[in-house]
């Protein structure tokens, strides 16, 4: 039986990860809609969502055939690769080593690129615009699909994990339609930091389960692992921050 203690970390991980990805896809789709009209934007989005739907339909039966312990090990390793990569980047961004992701800048770049492409090739501009929306939805959506499957598949939590992702999509779309501009005020790096912590915790937990580790407290160990990664991540930010030279 699924309890809140088990489902809550899965729901919050997919919800937060999906917010980050959906905001990025929304920025591109909004740029396409603004420059070229909503028809190619929505067509590209619908085609992208169809590809993602087919991907889920194809992966579902495959996942059910893999023995649980092997599935946990494979998903655990993938989550470790994915989660630690996100956490590393978020730490380096928080320390000022890597530039923060800027939705306004991404929107301006996509708008300029579409305007330029439309000027050069007026006959194919709807196609180019639709393709840009399609690419954004597929590329960001694949990450959402992976996080949902990775967090949910090991413990029968696919539905709660999918609900977390769906709630994030609806929230971003509702806010996006209301403000009608890039959602640049979303604290993206903070979200990525949190998601990196959670996915790393899930990654260690599933990898351990796949290796046959008996975690103390069973599923509650995920919360403990999350606290460890959060503490390490926060401690690493000032260590990574470049030291300021004192002017003479």
């Amino acid at each position, binding site marked *: 039986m699924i309890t809140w203690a088990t489902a809550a970390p899965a729901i919050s991980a997919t919800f937060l990860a999906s917010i980050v990805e959906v905001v990025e896809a929304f920025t591109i789709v909004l740029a396409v809609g603004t420059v070229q009209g909503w028809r190619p934007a929505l067509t590209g989005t619908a085609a992208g969502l169809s590809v993602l739907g087919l991907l889920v339909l194809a992966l579902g039966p495959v996942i059910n055939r893999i023995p649980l312990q092997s599935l946990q090990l494979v998903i655990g390793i993938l989550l470790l690769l994915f989660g630690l990569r996100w956490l590393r980047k978020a730490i380096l961004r928080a320390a000022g080593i890597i530039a923060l992701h800027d939705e306004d800048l991404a929107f301006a770049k996509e708008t300029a690129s579409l305007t330029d492409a439309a000027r050069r090739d007026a006959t194919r501009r709807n196609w180019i615009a639709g393709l840009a929306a399609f690419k954004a939805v597929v590329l960001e959506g694949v990450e959402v699909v992976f996080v949902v499957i990775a967090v949910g598949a090991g413990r029968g939590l696919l539905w709660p994990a999918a609900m977390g992702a769906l709630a994030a999509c609806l929230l971003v779309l509702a806010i996006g339609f209301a403000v009608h501009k890039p959602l640049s005020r979303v604290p993206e790096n903070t979200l990525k930091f949190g998601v990196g912590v959670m996915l790393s915790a899930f990654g260690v937990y599933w990898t*351990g389960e796949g290796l*046959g580790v008996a975690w103390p407290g069973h599923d509650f160990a995920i919360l403990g692992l999350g606290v460890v990664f959060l503490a390490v991540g926060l401690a690493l930010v000032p260590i990574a921050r470049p030291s300021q030279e004192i002017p003479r």
Partner: protein
Amino acid sequence: MNIIRLILREFIGLFVDDEMLAVSILAVVAGCWLLAHYVHDTSFTIGALLVIGCVGVLLSSVVQGARR
């Protein structure tokens, strides 16, 4: 074809961004697997080693990233 290649490249990029980080994570997991397989120790010790290994890999990768 270009789109499929782009999507594949992006998919691999989800897991491998910094090659050293990815290889180190796989080495930690492989070490734990060898211990679990040959020492037949599936107790909490393997879990603790996994946590320490991953934290160590993260620390080293962040410090190297900051130095670059």
